[in-house]
């Protein structure tokens, strides 16, 4: 990575029953896709609290990918529809905050769709690359920088991060 090349940081939330296995399949089949995505496995896309997305974006992610089972195929019957509805409302909120709604993407991928998962990931990374870095609250706000320097408890993110990840995994 050279100084002038922007490599997007993507957080991907995957469903244990489908898209996580799709990613697994993509890996075992030696398919190539952009390495920018950090996957976090959840039991279901319905577990996705929009807080996770907001926190990812506010702490350095340039985009968030949410993946789940195809409509009608949810392991927990209909939770992926909840994910869909949250996603649609969340995009409206992000727009109001000046964040391109395209920075959050919802993808349906079954456990057999390794190729689709790989292709969608690569396409998303390219989309985010075009949008540029988000750098939320880091490059843009003088006051925000001060806060981070002062070690404000609400912003000491790294110490809290491990517990956050545990929470997501639970």
């Amino acid at each position: 990575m050279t100084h002038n090349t922007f490599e997007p940081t993507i957080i991907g939330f995957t469903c244990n029953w489908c898209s996580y296995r799709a990613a697994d399949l993509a890996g075992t089949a030696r398919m190539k896709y952009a390495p920018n995505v950090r996957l976090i496995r959840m039991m279901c896309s319905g577990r996705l609290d929009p807080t996770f997305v907001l926190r990812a974006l506010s702490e350095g992610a340039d985009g968030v990918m949410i993946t789940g089972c195809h409509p009608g195929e949810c392991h927990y019957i209909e939770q992926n529809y909840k994910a869909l509805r949250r996603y649609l409302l969340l995009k409206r909120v992000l727009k109001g905050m000046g964040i391109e709604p395209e920075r959050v993407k919802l993808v349906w991928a079954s456990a057999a769709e390794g190729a689709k998962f790989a292709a969608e990931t690569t396409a998303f990374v390219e989309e985010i690359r075009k949008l540029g870095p988000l750098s939320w609250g880091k490059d843009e706000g003088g006051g925000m920088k001060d806060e981070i320097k002062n070690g404000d408890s609400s912003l000491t993110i790294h110490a809290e991060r491990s517990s956050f990840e545990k929470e997501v995994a639970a």
Partner: protein
Amino acid sequence: MKPKFAMYWAASCGGCEIAVLNTHEKILDVDANFDVVFWPVAMDAKYKDVEAMEDGSILLTLFNGSIRNDENEHIAKLLRQKSKILVAFGSCACEGCIPGLANLSPVGDIVHTAFNTLTTDNPHQIYPRTSFDVPEGELHIPKLEKVLRPLDHVVDVDYYMPGCPPESHQIAAVIDLVIKVVKGEAELPPKGATIGVGNSTVCDECPRARNVKTIREFKRIQDIAPVDPNLCLLEQGIPCNGPATCSGCNARCPNAGAQCIGCYGPAQGVMDYGARLITAFSSVIDATEPQEIERILDGIPDPIGQVYRFNLAGSLLKANRNAFKS
């Protein structure tokens, strides 16, 4: 000698002060047990008087209002230094409240709206400056910051007391507690605690009947006639913020026939108020097709105002991107 008490208002409306006075005769207990050393809305005092006090000499400071300009920040830091217990008092100090909605706009736009729109006659285009020379010397007015911040983004806060304003019965209970602590009859809650609240959501205090919710349409309360007085408002399609909002107000608004707008801030365990509401509203929508879901969501015409009315500055994102850039 009586312990010292201070109360300050930064970027706020003054409603918190009125809520304190609304404790009626309880205010006399404050006077009987405390020496009020600084309270700009109630008594004359100068900042230099506070600056001259010993560090940590004020036992209890109730700080209401958020940090909008450099004067607010200066006094917040000053009072932190002089106070043993600093309470973020009211929604503005806790999470930004209504003034925090200004974080949706660049500060230049805010000033422009105030000084140069249809409601303001400003033919000479006079805008405020932070300093100005007059024959008597140089005058200063506080400088607006890019974004408004809650108190704990600027200084360390001991306790949080939410509400817009905090309910008077909750203030009275907190005053009673502090007096007991002073007399050695009670102990303070752990640092960082939210005080003067219930430990659940507004829904738990709301007497309206709740069933399984299936929303086919969101509507404004004034567009529904008649509103069922006994049924959950969210169930009737009115976006009610109760599910995400901390209890403590005795569900005043739903009791009075209006939806909860969230002035008591996030309930315990809620990291981002708006995210919790997104979850709550999305869960009750009865649709699976994207187009149909979008149609139903159109019933919430101002999503930010709906889910972050009191909480924007205290949310994870804090402000619109354009406000940071300004």
